[in-house]
């Protein structure tokens, strides 16, 4: 069934089809529609879930950790300040190995107040151990929630499905809503091995000394590494059942590309348009879209960049004191390679400033002229 859905509602449908059992959320612009629709679905009985109307995002995440530890499927959504408030509990979810799935609407952090899109909120959580996936359209948002549960529950680590504020969250696109029976077949109910159960009592999260903490961290990293294959596996399985193709990355016109535009989310989807126009001008350019950012698909990135002359990364974020964050990670992945091309890092679109096809063409044409980058940040569109 096809429906016209805003990105937020695509998240809601994803959670509904995945049969989330406990939903705990606190409203924040521009996430409110996610939980409003889920609330309606719970009220009508369409979704058999317990909806806890918590008084803060910190409590939202804490309650899902508790519920997941008993062995049920959990969902929440948030954005910027809410995600920042949850930070302590994001770490807790990972250490407690609870496969929570959360929608995060990328919104610029305050102060000053802003409701427009920027990726710093989710990227500042990149070291917590949460898997991170950046969606480029509402179909992907819905599909990724379902896939995220499958991957998360296979390795017992939480995942966030991330979409841009307003550009996706409040923009209507046609979305194919998968059939519930097919989703049930693809995603069986959650079975947790060690859980809160009075018939088999254990204490979870007790004080762990220097003799054992290291090994527990090793296990989390190993789970993240396992997730790399898992995302690809789950993507292929999804394609077989639902007909839509997904993986760790996505490429567009790279087979004969000399130069590459690397980006994520909606900038990447706009970049296709720019690339088509550049190709008309004779440029041999392609797109690398990084979809799963954590775990970072270093091998896949190397596979594309090792036959490229020049690459430019467009970041809608910035790691203050360093540079754009996708830029840092792409460079790091290429560092020890024999054939690493010059990689340019552009920061654009912070605070929701529009990044159009025209801007991307300008970015490309400006950087490709140069032999190698003079600095780690090229600011696009700064009022100078």
């Amino acid at each position, binding site marked *: 069934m096809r429906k016209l859905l805003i990105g937020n509602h695509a998240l809601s449908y994803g959670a509904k089809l995945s049969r989330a059992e406990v939903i705990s959320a606190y409203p924040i612009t521009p996430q409110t529609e996610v939980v409003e629709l889920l609330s309606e679905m719970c009220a009508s009985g369409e979704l058999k879930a317990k909806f806890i109307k918590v008084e803060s995002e910190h409590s939202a995440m804490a309650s899902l950790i508790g519920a997941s530890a008993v062995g049920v499927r959990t969902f929440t959504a948030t954005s910027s300040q809410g995600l920042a408030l949850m930070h302590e509990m994001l770490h807790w979810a990972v*250490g*407690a*190995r609870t496969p929570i799935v959360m929608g995060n609407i990328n919104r610029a952090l305050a102060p000053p107040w802003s409701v427009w899109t920027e990726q710093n909120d989710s990227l500042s959580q990149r070291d917590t151990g949460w898997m991170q996936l950046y969606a480029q359209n509402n179909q992907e948002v819905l599909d990724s929630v379902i896939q995220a549960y499958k991957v998360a529950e296979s390795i*017992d680590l939480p995942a966030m499905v991330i979409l841009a504020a307003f550009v996706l969250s409040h923009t209507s696109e046609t979305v194919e809503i998968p059939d519930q029976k097919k989703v049930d077949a693809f995603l069986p109910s959650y079975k947790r*091995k*060690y859980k809160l159960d009075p018939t088999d009592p*254990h*204490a*979870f*999260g*007790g004080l*762990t000394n220097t*003799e*054992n903490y290291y*090994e*527990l961290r*090793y*296990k989390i990293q190993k789970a993240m590494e396992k997730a790399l294959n898992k995302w690809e596996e789950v993507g292929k399985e999804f394609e077989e059942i639902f007909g839509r193709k997904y993986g760790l990355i996505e490429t567009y016109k790279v087979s004969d590309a000399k130069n590459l535009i690397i980006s994520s989310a909606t900038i990447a989807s706009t970049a296709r348009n720019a690339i088509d126009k550049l190709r008309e001008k004779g440029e041999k350019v392609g797109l690398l879209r990084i979809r799963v950012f954590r775990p970072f698909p270093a091998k896949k990135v190397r596979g594309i960049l090792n036959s490229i002359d020049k690459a430019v990364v467009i970041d809608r974020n910035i790691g203050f004191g360093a540079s754009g964050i996708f830029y840092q990670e792409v460079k790091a992945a290429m560092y020890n390679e024999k054939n690493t091309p010059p990689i340019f890092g552009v920061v654009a679109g912070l605070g929701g400033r529009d990044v159009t096809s025209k801007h991307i063409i300008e970015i490309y044409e400006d950087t490709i002229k140069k032999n190698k980058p003079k600095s780690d940040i090229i600011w696009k569109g700064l009022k100078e």
Partner: protein
Amino acid sequence: MSKKSKKIIIYKKEKELPPSAISFASMNYNKTGNWRNFRPVINYAKCTSCLICWKFCPEGAIKLKKTKKNNKEVIKPVINYDYCKGCGICWEECPTGAIDIIQEEED
């Protein structure tokens, strides 16, 4: 007190650890009796089986021993010195002065 196996767990290899910090054994391997400086001793001649000592022991280190005397059930408190931390609450609370507190022996 449960007579569960007093297991000590030492993980030698990463594979042996559970996926996160989960308990798999009881703290009863930890014989807190070695914390004592002073040891409470019950004088059963004065003990009236009020069981106030059993009631107030923070550790639950006083067991109830049930016997039959003249067809009546008699309950006497018995201190488990493996675990008694020597806090002295039983000594302080005993209403008949049936508990003495003496210096713990040197090891």
